C-alpha cells in the first residue's frame, strides 16, 4: 500500500496517510506516509470505503497489519486530543507482539468498519479517562494472539513445534537451529492460522516496553505545522460555511433578511436550519463577514428571559427539597442529633465552558447516498450516527475520517457541528467546511452544570466522626442515564467517597435549566471534589486537626490513599512553616480508579492578588503504560482545573450566554501557571486507573484550602475572581 498523491484532500490519498511513525532505533524521528518518508502529512483523507483495505493479506486481526517490509500498522480506536493514547495504545500491542517499535505506524481505526463489523474496535468514544483502562486487555490479547500466529506460521514452515520457537524484535527464531524468519515474511500465512486457544497475556512483571517513558508519536508533527486538525481539511470543490445558532437556547430561526449581503464577493448562498443560519462562501472569512451583516430574526422561545440570578436561586432552592438517596450507610437521621458538634456549609459552582483551543468545525460531503465527514471528534461512533441522521442515509454509508483534535475535554463527545455540516452539505450539494467562530463556540457549548450542595457533619464530644450528610443540586447532562432520580455523574465522588463516617448519606436533586449540558473534564468529580475536599478541610480546622492527619484518620482503611497522602506530604513540604501572605492547601480524591492528591502553595498580596506559586501532585493509577504521558496529563489537567477555579464562569442574561471570547472568559496563561511537580506513588496490583481527568478535579480545593491557610477566608463559591481577597492576608 503506497500513497499515490501528496496534496491533502486528494481523493487518491490512502487512509493510511494518517500514520505516525514510532521513534526510530537511532533516537531520531521518522515521519511518514507509507512509502513517502518525510512528507509528514497526517490526515485520514480517503473517500474510499474501508472495505478496500479490510482485505489486506497481512491483516492479522482488525488491530494489526504487517506489511512485507516489516512495517507494523497498529490501529488506534480512540481519539487523540492531546492525551497521548495514540502512543500508549500501540505500545500495549507492541509489548505483546514483540515487534520493533521503530517500525510501528499507528493509524486511526475506521468508525465505518466498527459499525459494519459489530464493534470490532469496541467503543470509539474517548472520555472517562478510559482509553488504557478499557483497551489494555483487549490490545494485549490482540498482540499476543498475533505473535502466537506468527510463531505458528514459522513453525509450520520449518516443520517444528511452535514451542521450540520464540519471537522478538519482529522476528521468529527456531531456538535450536538459530533459523529466523521476519514478521513481514510470515504475515500472510499467520493471517490464516487458527489457534487452538488464545494465549495468556503478560502480567505487569513481564512488561518490557509498557511502563517506560516513550516519546509521543504525534509530537514531531506538532512542532512544524504538519499535524492536520479538522479545521485544516481541504477537499476538492469545497466551500466554506460560517454559522450562527439561536443565541437563546432552544430558540428557532424566524426569518433572515439577505438584502444586506446581496452581491457580496464570494458569497454563494444562505442556508436556513431550524435553529441556525449558515452563510456559504468561497472563503471562510467572506462567509463570516456576510453572516455578521445579515439581519436575522429569532423566535427566542421559552428561555428568552432566563438568567444567572434565577439559576442561582433555582439551584439553592433545590437544596430545600428531599433528593433521591444515592447512598446511605448507617442512619444519619438518628446519629446527627446525638452529635456534640454539627458543622454545616453550602457550596456552589458555576456553569463553565470547555473553550477548546480549536473551535468546533467539521467538513462534510453528502454525495450519492454516501456521507464523508472529516472531523476531530472524541466520539466517532456518535459522529457516524449524527451524520447518518442528518443526511438521511444508513449508518453503513457514513465514513468518519477522524483527525487530531485541538483539545476535547468532553466538548467533542457531542458532535453538534457534524450534524450541522452534514445538513448544510446536503442542502447545497457540495462538500463544505463549517467553522464555528470563537463566540459561537463559547455561546453554544455543552456546558458543565451549575451546582450547589449542602453538607452537614456531626462529631462526638471526643472528636470522633459520627455522621456525614450531603445533598447536591446539579443538572443532568445525560437524562437517559437517570434511574430512580439519580444520574451517575452528578453524584460522582460523593456517593463513592472513601471517607469513613459510620453514618453517611448522599442525596441528589436533579436540577436542569435551559442551558445545554455536557461532560466537562472529570464531569461530576470536578465540582464534587471541590465541594468535598473543601468541606473536609473545614472539618479538620473546626475540630482542631491538621488537614493531612485528619484525612489519614478517615482513610486509614485504604493503604493506597495513605501512600498517596504520605508521598504528597513529604514531597509537598507539608507542615513546613510559610511566611505571612502565603499558604499551603491539600486535596485528595479518587476518580476513574486513580487516586490523585495535590498540595498548592499560594501567595496573596495586600491588594488581594492571588498567585498559585507551586503545585505538587502525587498519583496512584496502579500501573502506567507511558509514565511521561501520565505526568503530562496530570500537569495539564491541573492547569485546566486551575482555569476553572480562578476564572471559569459562564453567565446567562436574557436567555443567552454573555461571554464570547477569551477577553470575557479568561483562562490560565503562563503568568498564572504554577511550578509543578508530579510524583507517581503507584501501588500496582490490579489497579489500572485513568489519568486524563483527575488533575482537573483536584486542584480547585487545593487552591481554596491554601487560601484558607493563608487568610482564614473560606471560599465556598467559584470562581475565585469574584471573591475579594484584599486585606485577607
Amino acid at each position, binding site marked *: 500500500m503506497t500513497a499515490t498523491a501528496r496534496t491533502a484532500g486528494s481523493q487518491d490519498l490512502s487512509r493510511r496517510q494518517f500514520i505516525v511513525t514510532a521513534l526510530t532505533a537511532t533516537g531520531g524521528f521518522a515521519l511518514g506516509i507509507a512509502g513517502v518518508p518525510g512528507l509528514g502529512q497526517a490526515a485520514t483523507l480517503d473517500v474510499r470505503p474501508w472495505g478496500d483495505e479490510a482485505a489486506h493479506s497481512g491483516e492479522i486481526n482488525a488491530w494489526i497489519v504487517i506489511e512485507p517490509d516489516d512495517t507494523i500498522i497498529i490501529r488506534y480506536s480512540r481519539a487523540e486530543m492531546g492525551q*497521548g493514547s495514540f502512543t500508549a495504545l500501540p505500545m500495549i500491542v507492541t509489548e505483546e507482539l514483540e515487534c520493533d517499535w521503530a517500525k510501528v505506524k499507528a493509524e486511526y481505526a475506521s468508525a465505518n468498519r466498527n459499525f459494519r463489523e459489530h464493534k470490532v474496535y469496541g467503543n470509539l468514544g474517548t472520555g472517562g479517562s478510559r482509553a488504557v483502562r478499557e483497551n489494555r486487555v483487549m490490545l494485549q490479547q490482540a498482540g499476543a494472539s498475533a505473535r502466537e500466529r506468527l510463531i505458528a506460521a514459522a513453525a509450520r514452515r520449518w516443520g517444528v513445534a511452535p514451542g521450540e520457537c520464540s519471537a522478538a524484535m519482529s522476528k521468529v527464531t527456531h531456538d535450536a537451529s538459530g533459523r529466523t524468519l521476519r514478521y513481514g515474511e510470515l504475515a500472510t500465512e499467520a493471517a490464516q492460522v487458527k489457534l487452538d486457544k488464545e494465549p495468556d497475556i503478560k502480567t505487569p512483571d513481564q512488561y518490557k516496553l509498557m511502563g517506560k517513558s516513550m516519546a509521543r508519536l504525534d509530537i514531531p508533527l506538532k512542532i512544524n505545522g*504538519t499535524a492536520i486538525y479538522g479545521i485544516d481539511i481541504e477537499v476538492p470543490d469545497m466551500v466554506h460555511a460560517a454559522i450562527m445558532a439561536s443565541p437563546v437556547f432552544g430558540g428557532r430561526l424566524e426569518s433572515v433578511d439577505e438584502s444586506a449581503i446581496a452581491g457580496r464577493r464570494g458569497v454563494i448562498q444562505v442556508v436556513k436550519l431550524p435553529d441556525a443560519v449558515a452563510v456559504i462562501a468561497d472563503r471562510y472569512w467572506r462567509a463570516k463577514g456576510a453572516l455578521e451583516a445579515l439581519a436575522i430574526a429569532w423566535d427566542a422561545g421559552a428561555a428568552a428571559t432566563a438568567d444567572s440570578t434565577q439559576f442561582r436561586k433555582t439551584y439553592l432552592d433545590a437544596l430545600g427539597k428531599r433528593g433521591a438517596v444515592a447512598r446511605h450507610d448507617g442512619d444519619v437521621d438518628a446519629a446527627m442529633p446525638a452529635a456534640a458538634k454539627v458543622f454545616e456549609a453550602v457550596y456552589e459552582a458555576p456553569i463553565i465552558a470547555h473553550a477548546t483551543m480549536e473551535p468546533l468545525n467539521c467538513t462534510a460531503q453528502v454525495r450519492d447516498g454516501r456521507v464523508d465527514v472529516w472531523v476531530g471528534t472524541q466520539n466517532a461512533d456518535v459522529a457516524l450516527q449524527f451524520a447518518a441522521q442528518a443526511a438521511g442515509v444508513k449508518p453503513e454509508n457514513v465514513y468518519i475520517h477522524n483527525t487530531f483534535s485541538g483539545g476535547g475535554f468532553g466538548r467533542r463527545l457531542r458532535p453538534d457541528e457534524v450534524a450541522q455540516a452534514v445538513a448544510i452539505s446536503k442542502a447545497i450539494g457540495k462538500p463544505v467546511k463549517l467553522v464555528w467562530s470563537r463566540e459561537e463556540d463559547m455561546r453554544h457549548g455543552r456546558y458543565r452544570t451549575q451546582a450547589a450542595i449542602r453538607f452537614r457533619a456531626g462529631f462526638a464530644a471526643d472528636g470522633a466522626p459520627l455522621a456525614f450528610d450531603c445533598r447536591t443540586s446539579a443538572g443532568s447532562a445525560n437524562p437517559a442515564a437517570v434511574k430512580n432520580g439519580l444520574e451517575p455523574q452528578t453524584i460522582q465522588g460523593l456517593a463513592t467517597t472513601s471517607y469513613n463516617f459510620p453514618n453517611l448519606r448522599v442525596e441528589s436533586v436533579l436540577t436542569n435549566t435551559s442551558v445545554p449540558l455536557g461532560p466537562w473534564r472529570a464531569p461530576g468529580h470536578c465540582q464534587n471534589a471541590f465541594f468535598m475536599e473543601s468541606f473536609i478541610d473545614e472539618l479538620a480546622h473546626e475540630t482542631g486537626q491538621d488537614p493531612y492527619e485528619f484525612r489519614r484518620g478517615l482513610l486509614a482503611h485504604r493503604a493506597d490513599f495513605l501512600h498517596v497522602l504520605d508521598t504528597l506530604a513529604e514531597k509537598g513540604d507539608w507542615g513546613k512553616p510559610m511566611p505571612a501572605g502565603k499558604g499551603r492547601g491539600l486535596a485528595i480524591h479518587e476518580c476513574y480508579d486513580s487516586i490523585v492528591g495535590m498540595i498548592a502553595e499560594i501567595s496573596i498580596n495586600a491588594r488581594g492578588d492571588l498567585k498559585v506559586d507551586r503545585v505538587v501532585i502525587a498519583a496512584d493509577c496502579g500501573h502506567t503504560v507511558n509514565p511521561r504521558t501520565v505526568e503530562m496529563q496530570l500537569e495539564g489537567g491541573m*492547569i485546566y482545573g486551575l482555569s476553572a477555579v480562578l476564572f471559569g464562569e459562564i453567565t446567562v442574561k436574557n436567555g443567552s450566554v454573555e461571554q464570547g471570547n477569551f477577553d470575557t472568559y479568561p483562562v490560565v496563561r503562563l503568568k498564572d501557571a504554577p511550578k509543578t511537580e508530579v510524583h507517581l506513588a503507584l501501588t500496582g496490583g490490579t489497579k489500572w486507573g485513568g489519568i486524563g481527568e483527575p488533575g482537573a478535579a483536584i486542584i480547585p480545593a487545593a487552591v481554596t484550602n491554601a487560601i484558607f491557610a493563608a487568610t482564614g477566608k473560606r471560599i465556598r463559591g467559584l470562581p475565585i475572581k469574584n471573591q475579594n481577597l484584599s486585606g485577607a492576608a
Partner: protein
Amino acid sequence: MITITVNGTSHQLEVESETPLLWVLREEIGLTGTKFGCGIAACGACTVHVNGTPIRSCSVPVGSVDGAQVTTIEGLSPDSKHPVQQAWLAEQVPQCGYCQSGQIMAVAAYLKENPNPTDADIDANLTNICRCGTYERLRRAVHRAAASMKI
C-alpha cells in the same frame, strides 16, 4: 494587488485588503500550520513573524503588511531543527498541539529580543494561551532553547 513574501516565496494576492493575514495564509496560500483560535488577538494561536516581529495574524489586515516578509511555522526551519523546535521535542511540550505553532513562533521571536530570560521574564512576556496546560514544560523548553542557542 497585495504582495507578501511568505517563507521566502512571493505571493500576489487579489483579496480584500481588510482580510486578516491569518486567513490569507490558510486559505489563499494553503499554509495551515498557523491556527485560528479567537479572532481577536487574545490567544496567540495565529502568531507569525512579519519582518521578524511576532504578530497575531488574525487581527492584522493583509493590506497593512503589503510588501512584508512573513515567516510562518512552516518556514521557521526547513527540517524542524530550529532550537525552539528541538527544545519542544526534547521536553515533549505539545499535547493537543493546536496552540503550539503560535507558541513556538512567539518564543523564537522572544529569544532574539531576550536570549537569556528568567522564569519571570517568560511569564511576563509570553502570553499565548494553551488550554492543555503545557506551561510547565513550555517554560523548561524555553530555557533549553535559550541555552542551546548560546552554544
